[in-house]
């Protein structure tokens, strides 16, 4: 009889403690925010044609310039970035240069003579939005004659 009572006692205790164990006046959930690396860059203004068609007698042809057609926009949330520029045209008849003007969100590098090797255009790009005007200068010498160069110019946001 005692044994039976003891068994029942144990069962009730377990059930009772179980009731206490499941009682919880607090519960929770998580909020997880995953921010991916963002390095976006875009050119506005479309394609640009520079025409060299004037000269002062006795001097080389005048440069053709444009600093209003194309802008560069970027957004990055990663530190230590820069923007480089390169052309697809390995063999060029004439010289094409570019420099970033009115830069926000970075520092302008010196004017670049375009080649197939990537060169710095904007340095010290911060974790911010940024923009600049793209100022192109095409130049030719009289000895280079006539013709045309078609560049595909690529801007890249990359690790500094």
């Amino acid at each position, binding site marked *: 009889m*005692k044994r039976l009572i*003891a068994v029942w006692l144990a069962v009730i205790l377990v059930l009772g403690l179980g009731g206490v164990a499941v009682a919880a006046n607090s519960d929770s959930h998580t909020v*997880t925010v995953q921010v991916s690396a963002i390095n976006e860059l875009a050119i506005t203004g479309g394609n640009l044609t520079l025409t060299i068609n004037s000269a002062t007698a006795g001097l080389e042809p005048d440069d053709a310039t444009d600093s209003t057609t194309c802008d560069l926009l970027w957004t990055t*949330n*990663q530190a230590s970035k820069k923007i480089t520029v390169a052309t697809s045209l390995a063999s060029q008849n004439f010289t094409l240069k570019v420099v970033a003007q009115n830069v926000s969100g970075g520092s302008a590098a010196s004017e670049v003579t375009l080649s197939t090797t990537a060169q710095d255009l904007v340095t010290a790009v911060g974790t911010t939005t940024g923009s600049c005007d793209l100022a192109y200068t095409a130049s030719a010498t009289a000895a280079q004659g006539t013709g045309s160069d078609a560049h595909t110019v690529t801007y890249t946001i990359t690790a500094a």
Partner: protein
Amino acid sequence: MKKITRFIVLLVMFGLIAIGERADAIVITVSGSWPLAIDASDLVAGAGSDLIGTYESNSDQIVLDIDVGRGNFRVDVSKINTYWHSDFQLYVRRTSDGTGGGKISGGTSYQEITDTYQSFFTFKKDRTGINLQLKLSGVSVQVAPDTYTTTAYYTIVKI
């Protein structure tokens, strides 16, 4: 025989204690979580623009079930950050009353979840299916890429 009587009395006492514990049990169950992924598609207008600053979860992102019996109760809310950005602000609001008896009131406007408990809403009886919506603000490109996690705690207080 006396011993047997003593055992029976003890048995009844423990039984009553067990039942009492069950009757007083206050249980809140939180279902759901909010995983939020932010990438370049969240830029307001592509390159040159910032990220959307504020995000809202579904209106039933989190569901609360409350088992209290009856009385006057309050749910308080707070959070504990695992790894959180100081620019972030997390808000919560109640978007449904759920089902159950008694009155439920408060908590229908967004309130910030801080690191200390704050009153969220009050209620009187058991309720199930109380929907909660979350909002995150303070997102920008100033926030470095990483995974940020916090845990929101909901606690029932008898008032």
